[in-house]
């Protein structure tokens, strides 16, 4: 099983697209930093919540840079995840995997782990880049000050990575279903990215519906879970019935991820491989 994962990992980094997409995210984070510092576009206040109002300029700059880079990472992780599955079908190399002594569950699992690892590595790279730019433009000193929850920026950033990973993993599990079902690279990527945009609209509609009709259970929809950040907490003025806790958020997302993953696994196992 580890060998399967290692092969996926080798293949992933042997592709130019993995590097190029990561580079774009890094450049974008850099541009954000340069924009804030050089052009004085100001530190984006929507990213840092009210609770961080007391944070140092450096911490706010870091969070802005990090979140701009990681917003691209979440799209690029979707693209690479779709490629990890569909390219094997497009190039017919899937039969090399399926005729070795591993069952299809293990093969899909190794691909999921590779997608997860790409996501984590990309976020860590963007984190480091954000740290570097913050340090270069605003000095490293601010990073050591407490931001919130008793954490300094270094730690706060790492916890944010973990939060983004769980949220993005939900998308990746949806992409897995699409990719296993469609097997077409272009289609899977297009649908996945479309989905990300459509869902953000749907989330807003659902929230309106929840508040107006007082259907508080709507808060458990996966898109609401995704937009929740346990470090930031619930929006001010949100009724208690509509608010989420850290545990509820984590367990809810994990259940959704598991459900989509098992759907993908079922599809992947059931289908004949007869492309030529």
């Amino acid at each position: 099983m580890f060998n399967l994962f290692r092969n996926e990992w080798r293949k992933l980094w042997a592709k130019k697209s993995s590097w190029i997409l990561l580079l774009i995210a890094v450049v974008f984070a850099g541009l954000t930093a340069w924009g804030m510092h050089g052009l004085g576009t100001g530190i984006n206040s929507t990213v840092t919540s009210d609770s961080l109002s007391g944070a140092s300029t450096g911490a706010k700059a870091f969070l802005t840079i990090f979140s701009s880079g990681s917003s691209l990472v979440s799209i690029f992780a979707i693209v690479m995840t779709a490629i990890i599955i569909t390219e094997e079908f497009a190039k017919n190399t899937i039969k090399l995997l399926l005729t070795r002594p591993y069952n299809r569950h293990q093969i899909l699992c190794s691909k999921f782990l590779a997608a997860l690892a790409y996501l984590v590595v990309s976020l860590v790279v963007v984190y480091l880049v954000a740290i570097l730019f913050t340090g270069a433009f605003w000095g490293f000193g601010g990073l050591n000050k407490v931001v919130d929850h008793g954490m300094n920026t270094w730690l706060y950033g790492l916890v944010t990575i973990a939060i983004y990973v769980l949220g993005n993993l939900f998308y990746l599990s949806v992409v897995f279903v699409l990719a296993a079902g469609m097997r077409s690279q272009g289609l899977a990527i297009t649908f996945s990215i479309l989905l990300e945009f459509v869902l953000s609209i749907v989330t807003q509609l659902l929230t309106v519906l929840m508040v107006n009709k007082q259907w508080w259970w709507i808060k458990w929809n996966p898109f609401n879970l995704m937009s929740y950040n346990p470090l930031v907490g619930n929006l001010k003025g949100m009724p208690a019935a509509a608010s989420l806790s850290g545990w509820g958020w984590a367990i809810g997302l994990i259940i959704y991820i598991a459900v989509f993953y098992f759907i993908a696994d079922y599809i992947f196992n059931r289908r004949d491989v007869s492309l030529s």
Partner: protein
Amino acid sequence: MADTTDYAAVVDHLSKKMHYVQILKDVSFSVGKGRILGLLGPNGAGKTTTLRIMVHLMRPTSGTVTIMGEDVEKDFTKAIMHVGAMIEAPEFYNYLTGFKNLRMLADMSRTAISDADINAVIERVGLANHGNAKVKTYSLGMRQRLGVAQAILHKPEVLLLDEPINGLDPAGAHDFRTLMSDLRDQGTSIVISSHILSDIQSLADDLVVLQHGQVTYQGTMDELISHGTNHLEVTTTKPDETVVILQQMKLQYTRKEDTFDIAVPEGDPHAFQKQLAEALFNTGIPVTTMQLRQASLEDSFLALTKEKGAKANV
């Protein structure tokens, strides 16, 4: 049916329906241990489909496949461990070198395969100088060779090769045959599919002919060879008297002036030749020439599959 552990692979009553089309109908055959089985059939006969089902890339509608005593569907990982396969065109990660492609495949094997082992296989298939080139630079024949390398890499007991000679030049085809007979001598059981009999006639011990998804001939290569109709060409100076003798002996023949083309009845053709020579000699007919023309394998194969194929179509 004999015990499935007596054979390297047993294909038992396979049927496959896809999109309401019956692609395979009740296909059964067994691959003897240490033997080469030729799976022969025209385009679209179902050879690739059969091989795909044998490695579980596809599920059969009904029927089972057993490899080294393990059911492919129920005990996939145990069964597939014994198999090396190249089904349809070989496929690779084109952005990796030939060596790296094999390295990755080796890492998915249940036995440890060292870099030296991989280089030995690369050499064995005649790619010694190309292992470190990216596969996207390979020619068709080189891809075919690397495909064979993929299949034999983990020294499997059972090899399934789909049209492996496709795209090989004569030297390559010769190397391939040598490699296959070496592997057979080492005990490997091999299935080679082809639509050209001559590609596998010198190699195969057994033959299974597929037509329209059905097995229309199954037997050893020797049986096929003996099945063909031989011809005896005889020239005499007394053709009219010869006709009388041939009719007495109830033989099928065609006459062109003083030359007769006689269909040799079943049995030993040389014994028949002697018998006819004696009959003519005893009636005082001088024979100018007498020449036995053994049927080519292609002839007998065509005759055989035509008659059986016609039956299968009814």
